[in-house]
């Protein structure tokens, strides 16, 4: 212990909160615990051999790849992404409209740097992605939360909220939305709402930050056009990632947007980590170029679809259905449980006794809420474990309801 550090910590450091998932890590690690708390991919879908083949590139191009890279990112990988994402983005984006990042988490931090002065406001969904709230909070942001339903952000509420905030002199910097298979909500924003959101963005001159880490992991139905593709005016910044479609250990994500904002993000990236490792960028590129991204992705999707279905079947089998409801996610990683008569914290404590873990709803809300919600991840555990875990959860819920 050294008091000297404490007396020197910044205000941000005094207020920073570690992720709630980390906080329950010691609980999750208890022997026999079944955890639906994290948001991790299943290691059995990692294309280990195929990914390793890319390491040949180190021999061919080592002098280049072991050197400092450009902050903007490996051009070959950007070209690949420009092609590969074109259907979703509505066109092939130019190289200067894209920045490769150290995971899509870095896009959140860079957007904080570029946009947020302490006290500025960000509009988010209620609930929203925890680590986004944390990243923006670290930059001094405050939040205006918009409720969600099974069709995503309830965008009709935006005008009132925005106008009220502006009357109060609040400075709104951007609207943050997780469009597909929301974390934690599981919902997907409908086309109609996407269109409306773009209209409001134009009307109020507020840019949109479209975060889409799960979009390519769709189990059912058709892919929806991105908000980026609906906006000809450059007011949308889109973030994607290889974490869910290849593996998170690569730490490669990307941001696509108007070249001026991309340039700003790039200059901040110079300061925060100079460039993402050209080595991992090259491994990712080789993997993609050899065709494995397209070949392997259906396997990942099918693995997670099976697990989602297993979890839903277990819900129906084991949960008190009159008390707990959910929206079936069409992709992604999470179920979001609604339990109007159950306090999530009480359920959590009881569930831990029975050796099953989840994340309570409250940390996903920027200004309170979520006391009766639980986030359940289905990608990480095997179906038989899922069933056992849900069974334990059902017992815990019943014991609470029976008081």
């Amino acid at each position, binding site marked *: *212990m*050294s008091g000297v*550090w404490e*007396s*020197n*910590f*910044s205000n941000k*450091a005094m207020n*920073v909160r*570690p*992720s709630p998932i*980390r906080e329950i890590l010691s609980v999750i690690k208890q022997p026999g615990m079944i955890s639906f708390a994290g948001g*991790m*991919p299943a290691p059995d879908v*990692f294309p*280990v*051999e195929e*990914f*390793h083949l890319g*390491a040949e590139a*180190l*021999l061919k191009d*080592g002098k*280049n*790849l*072991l*050197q*400092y*890279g450009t902050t903007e990112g490996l051009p070959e990988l950007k070209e690949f992404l420009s092609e590969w994402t074109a259907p979703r983005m509505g066109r092939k984006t130019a190289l200067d409209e894209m920045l490769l990042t*150290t*995971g899509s988490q870095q896009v959140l*931090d860079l957007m904080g*740097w*570029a*946009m947020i*002065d*302490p006290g500025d406001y960000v509009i988010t969904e209620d609930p929203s992605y925890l*680590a986004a709230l*944390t*990243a923006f909070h670290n*930059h001094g942001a405050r939040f205006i939360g918009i409720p969600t339903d099974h069709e995503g952000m309830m965008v009709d509420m935006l005008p009132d909220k925005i106008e009220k905030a502006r009357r109060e002199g609040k400075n709104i910097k951007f609207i943050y939305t997780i469009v597909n298979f929301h974390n934690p909500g599981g919902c997907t924003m409908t086309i109609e709402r996407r269109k409306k959101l773009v209209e409001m963005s134009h009307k109020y001159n*507020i840019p949109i930050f479209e975060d889409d880490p799960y979009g390519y992991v769709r189990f059912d139905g058709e892919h929806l056009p991105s908000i980026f593709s609906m906006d000809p005016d*450059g*007011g949308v910044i889109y973030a994607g990632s290889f*974490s869910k479609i290849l593996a*998170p*250990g690569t*730490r490669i994500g990307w941001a696509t947007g*108007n070249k*001026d*904002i991309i340039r700003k993000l790039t200059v*901040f990236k*110079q*300061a925060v*980590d*100079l460039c*993402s*490792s050209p*080595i*991992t960028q090259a491994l990712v590129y080789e993997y993609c170029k050899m065709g494995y991204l397209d070949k392997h992705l259906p396997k990942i999707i099918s693995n997670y679809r099976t697990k989602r279905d297993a979890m839903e079947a277990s819900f129906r089998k084991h949960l008190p259905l009159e008390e707990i409801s959910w929206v079936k996610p069409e992709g992604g990683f999470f179920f979001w449980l609604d339990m109007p008569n159950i306090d999530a914290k009480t359920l959590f404590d009881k569930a831990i006794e029975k050796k099953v873990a989840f994340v309570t709803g409250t940390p996903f809300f920027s200004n309170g809420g979520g006391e009766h919600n639980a986030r359940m991840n289905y990608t990480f555990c095997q179906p038989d474990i899922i069933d056992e875990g849900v069974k334990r959860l059902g017992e815990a819920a019943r014991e609470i309801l029976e008081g």
Partner: protein
Amino acid sequence: MSDFFDPLFSRSAKNIKPSPIREILHLVRKPGMISFAGGMPDPEIFPIEQFQEAANIITREGKDIMQYGTTEGYPPLKDFISEWTAPKMGRKLQHEEILITAGSSQVVDLLCWALIDEGDYVVCEDPTFLGATGTMRNHKARFLTVPCDENGMQVDLLPDLIEKTLAEGGRIKFIYTIVNFHNPLGCDLSLERRKKLLDIAKRYGILILEDDPYGYVRFDGEDIPSIFSMDRDGIVLFACSFSKILAPGTRVAWCAGDKDLIRKMTVFKQGTDVCTSVVVQAMVWEYCKLGHLDSFLPRIIDHYRNKRDRMEAAFHAHLPLDLISWQKPAGGFFYWMTTPGIRADRLLEKAVDKGVAFVLGSAFYPTDSGGDNNFRMCFTFASPEMTDTGVKRLGEALRELA
């Protein structure tokens, strides 16, 4: 056009400037240009085959290393660092005292997150590494600068400077020092000054960031003990990197310090990038474990010693010694040149005309004053022939301005 974003940019975004080195890179791309501007390692001495061999760990450990890692870093790599750095650190570090980062620039960013509120002061050498001060500036730090001589920061000037600032109500958070083979100066902070610096920091309750990216690349003389190793109070954060001892493309670095501070920085790292790529951390670890770090590092050192000697010889052969002076660095990447009668910006113009580039000294002064008669020359990147030709051109440029 981003009508959307422009009016909404943060103050930092409105004020941020791209690095002057980056700007000069445009000049350097001109055909025939010989550049001593960047601070890049020589790709000729990258251990490509050895590192590629280390990639086999992907097959062996893929299920583990392709997953999200802990924010703190890949435990086997931390074990290795703890053992390997023990002589420099004075003891074996505990895991909780180490954080693995995305290059050592991230160390500065995370430390600023943990310590800097708007307007807080950082004490730094004048001149100093501009990447670090750029990051501090983004965090809205202000600077107290201390001149340097051939023994590094003139620490005797510190007490007055600190007391004056404290008397004016300023908050001083940390002292940033590059202890070995300073960038851009090339000098070492002497042992005596390290001790004094630590005493002063302790007396005033100010922390020290001991940045040491070049320390393991020593050509001559004995290693000087780290400030970290002299500190019993946990007030030193030590930063080092694999960029110069393996390759910068790994983007793997680390810092070591008091575990409360490391913990705070770790929580901020959760928000900035979750964790450093486990794939590349594991490759670095495998490379080290196979013994390549220890067997290859002497080759890197030899290679750069030869290059420094080549540049020194070229200086003696081609430069007008009455117009320019320098101090021979005992390690690292840089020469710092002084031209008392000639402005460095005029020299750069002339030099670029002749096909040779360097970085102006003024770029390294955080308060934007100083270095008008200085420039930095990197000796590690250019080939021996290019070094010779480039220095010859530089000599011509100097003579024409004299």
